[in-house]
């Protein structure tokens, strides 16, 4: 195994269940040392992807490699740690006992005290896991993922049960672990989390990857900037011919133009004197995400009206 072997390599992976193709042809390579967010709505296929990646489930098609080998072997060699979703606390065992046990299963664990400190558990180390609060249990799970000091940690919706403050401390710990040169993959349906904590965001929707890049890349891909102004009785047929415009949405008297080149669009509007109530807004990551996951029908639509409507529906569903 060389340094260049990627930590994670999924190629054309498919996993179908009777009612749904949960993972529908995913290609994903994660280099060592990267921190990657797997972003998607509930039911987008994140957890299935993670199960396949950890060898907890087998793909129907395609191949999953971790560090150039099978997930099972990588796990057996202690290269992987994971924080799984939906677990309840393990009964009748203290935090320290549990973290020590899991750490010792790995070839080169980190000192128990360090794992406990990193996960923010030093003060409750001798309490029983089944007597901790929900947030503390979540941190125990995080400690179990990193106790063995694995090269790759995989976190499935790590902050799902946490309040705002607990979330903040959790991400601090996670970044601390990533800074040591480890590879981190986490799934989330919170945009801000992905934006703030990952080098790279992989957006997954209906079992497919719909975008892969930095937060900036995603914003660019979703159509850059929104230019809007009052039509003031004008006809709107000419708007989609303006330079830079990729989509047009008319709402009553107001026209919204999605533009890849807002300067050129604004200049052209000014040239026609259409500048009443003119507003130029950068696309937020939020609307970028919504645009990306709005689905095939909406993306095929060139006027963008459907796309924005779909995005609004999604906004409500999120």
């Amino acid at each position: 195994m060389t340094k260049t072997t990627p930590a994670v390599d999924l190629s054309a992976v498919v996993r179908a269940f009777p009612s749904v193709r949960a993972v529908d042809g995913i290609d994903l390579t994660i280099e060592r040392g990267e921190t990657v967010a797997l972003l998607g709505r509930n039911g987008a296929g994140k957890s299935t992807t993670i199960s396949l990646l950890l060898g907890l489930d087998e793909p129907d098609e395609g191949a999953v490699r971790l560090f150039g080998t099978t997930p099972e072997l990588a796990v057996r060699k202690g290269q992987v740690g994971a924080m799984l979703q939906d677990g309840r606390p393990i009964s009748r065992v203290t935090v320290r006992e549990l973290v020590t046990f899991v750490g010792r299963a790995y070839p080169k664990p980190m000192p128990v005290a360090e794992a406990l400190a990193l996960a923010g558990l030093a003060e409750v180390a001798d309490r029983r896991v089944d007597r901790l609060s929900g947030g503390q249990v979540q941190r125990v799970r995080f400690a179990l993922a990193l106790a063995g000091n694995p090269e790759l940690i995989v976190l499935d919706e790590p902050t799902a049960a946490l309040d705002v403050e607990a979330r903040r401390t959790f991400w601090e710990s996670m970044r601390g672990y990533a800074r040591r040169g480890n590879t981190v993959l986490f799934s989330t349906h919170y945009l801000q989390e992905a934006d703030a904590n990952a080098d790279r965001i992989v957006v997954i929707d209906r079992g497919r990857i719909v975008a892969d890049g930095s937060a900036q890349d995603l914003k660019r891909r979703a159509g850059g900037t929104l230019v809007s102004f009052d039509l003031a009785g004008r006809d709107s047929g000419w708007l989609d011919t303006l330079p830079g415009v990729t989509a047009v949405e008319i709402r009553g008297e107001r026209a919204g133009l999605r533009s890849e080149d807002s300067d050129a669009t604004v200049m052209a509007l000014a040239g026609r004197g259409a500048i009443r109530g003119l507003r130029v807004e950068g696309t937020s990551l939020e609307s970028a995400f919504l645009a990306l996951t709005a689905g095939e029908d909406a993306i095929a639509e060139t006027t963008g009206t459907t796309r924005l409507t779909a995005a609004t529906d999604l906004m409500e569903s999120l």
Partner: protein
Amino acid sequence: MLLDYLRLEIRRTLRDTGFVVLGIGMPVLMYLLFTNLGASGDDAAGYKLSAMVGMAAYGALGAALGTGGAVAEDRSTGWLRQLRVTPLSPRQVVTGRAMSGSVTVLPAIAAVLAAGALVNGVRMDAWQWTVLVLLLWLGALPFTLLGLGNGYRLSTQVTGIANMICTMGLAIVGGLWFPTELFPGWLRTVSDYTPAHSFADLGWSTTAGTAPGATTLVVLFVWLLLFGAYAARSYRRSARTV
């Protein structure tokens, strides 16, 4: 690694109040009650001895099956799934579970035997005590497997009920609570082929100073195979969903 797992699971079992009270306390209490209420005369000493073996076997039976309850719980909490993403192999996990199950039958055996020796004044040769503990310990393996079979297959609640029914049913029919001499003839015949009766018979032959009979050994071995196959099937079935 396996030893660490074994230690962890034994620790968790011994911290289970239900296990300590019901699994260890119950057989001792029943033994002391049965042998000190009503039993008197010439038979008393013999009854104290045979009931000691019966109740120790009952305690071991309950503890062994109880392993299944713990497995069902670990499945539902996601602990088994978490173990699958550690370097511990599935084989080590199952082996560790079976071994921890075997170890946790010892406290019940020891407690009833101690009650026999210290409270009821049961006296035997040193080798008999040693062999008795050893045989009851090893002989409990089929029941550990039966428990694992239930635990890997059924939900936590259903496993609890199934284990209780198995424990009571096997203990009563096997003659662990009341001697089979009190049974009607047909039930006595049935009893001879039940796993619990063969299991306890290992102990009764030891206290009688003889080797276990061939029938006893064969019957118990057949049950070991059956329960082993059941455990293996349940485990394979659960491996897909854990």
